[in-house]
């Protein structure tokens, strides 16, 4: 379970998050949406401590990630992240990209890690790309590898930071299909996205952020049909 409590984050004088609180249950899929600059990505990045909250608490399985002496590595083993720009390691093959952290961090046997990662590649439909370098893959393929790389760590939670925003339109679907297949497998997912249709389809809840505040937190059928706030209504008018 992830519990965000009264989180503030500011960069210099810019207040990016203001008093954000929300809870994500185990196995739940939460879509975080909102206009650009509303703090969605920052909120996500606070959960695995790529950003440190200015104040407030974020509990991952009861451990406060913002506590000064927290074991960050331990939390990051449980919380995977998929990035907008994939961030594959260009000097490693697809398989090396995937086996690196399990072997290095979880001390998994190399042979075992390879078998596991090949199975994961199969699952995202890229078994034939194991020996390829990232530079030879399309955007959609890169992102599927990145998702598989994250899965190789057996995370309890995966944070998706605009996973399809850097993709050509024809590649969005293949990535969304992979993400959709993950929903409901027991992995907790927090997903920052601009794909409203997708959010509506897979998310258990929609969190709407605007100017650093959590304005709405509702099931998709309610949020998309009867948004409570003017801000959400305006936003939906623009994007739908």
């Amino acid at each position, binding site marked *: 379970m992830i519990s965000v409590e009264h989180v503030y984050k500011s960069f210099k004088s810019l207040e990016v998050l203001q008093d954000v609180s929300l809870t994500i249950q185990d196995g739940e899929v939460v879509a975080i949406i909102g206009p650009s600059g509303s703090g969605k990505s920052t909120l996500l990045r606070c959960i695995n401590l790529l950003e440190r909250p200015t104040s407030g608490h974020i509990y991952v399985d009861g451990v406060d990630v913002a506590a000064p002496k927290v074991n960050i590595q331990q939390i990051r083993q449980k919380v995977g992240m998929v990035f907008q720009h994939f961030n594959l390691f*260009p000097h490693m093959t697809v398989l090396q990209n995937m086996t690196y952290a399990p072997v290095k961090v979880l001390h998994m046997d190399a042979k075992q890690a390879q078998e596991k990662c090949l199975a994961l590649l199969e699952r995202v439909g890229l078994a034939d790309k194991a020996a390829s370098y990232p530079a*030879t893959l399309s955007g959609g393929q890169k992102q599927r590898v990145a998702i598989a790389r994250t899965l190789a*760590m057996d995370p309890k939670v995966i944070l998706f930071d605009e996973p399809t925003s850097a993709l050509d339109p024809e590649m969005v679907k293949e990535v969304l299909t992979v993400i959709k297949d993950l929903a409901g497998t027991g992995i907790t997912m927090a997903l920052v996205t601009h794909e409203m249709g997708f959010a509506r389809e897979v998310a258990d809840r929609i969190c709407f952020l605007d100017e650093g505040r959590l304005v709405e937190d509702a099931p998709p059928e309610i949020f998309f049909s009867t948004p409570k706030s003017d801000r959400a209504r305006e936003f939906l008018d623009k994007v739908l």
Partner: protein
Amino acid sequence: MQLDFGMMTKYMPYFFRSLVVTLQLTAASLLLGIIIAIPLSLIKLSRFRAVRAVGSFYTSIFRGVPLLVQVFVVYFGLPQLIGLTFTSFQAGCITFAFNSAAYISESLRGGIMAVDVGQREAAMALAVPYGSMMKDIIFPQAIKSVMPSLVNEFIGLLKNTTLISTVGLVDVLRASQMVVSDTYRAFEPYITAAAFYYVLVMFISFLGKQLERWVNKSDQR
């Protein structure tokens, strides 16, 4: 005026022995320099201003003092200070290593900063510890942009090692000087030394090109 390169042949074995010394000094200094430069570049990238200041102070010293002065300080000055005498080879190695570390660490720092921040974030998100991240993810990518300046540094270092002849190490330059005093002819010995250095530098440039191609391999399809 007549030139007589024929008389140089009998000194050739002597030149080649001195060439080994020059090569040993250059290689040892470069290797040691790189070893010092790695932690130094990380110091320069520290989150803490005070730590960074140490790094830039180090570099300012070695940049701001002429290399020959540095050689003299190490060879003549340090023994008086710490009571330990160095051979001229050791003194050269120490001076050139610490000196090139100052320059190499600068280009390493630039190379590390040029690696996309997403690489670092991906490694962090995968719970990869700092040391492994630097060694396996960041350095291998940084080295690509650092390689050309590393080759330049290697070449500069090779040429700078001639300064060590001033404290008596028989490198290629010193060897030629001795031939001069032996034969009372200056042009042939010095031109021979020049040719030795020139060929070496050309060879290093060639190796550097190959090395560059090799580290950029994964970019190719």
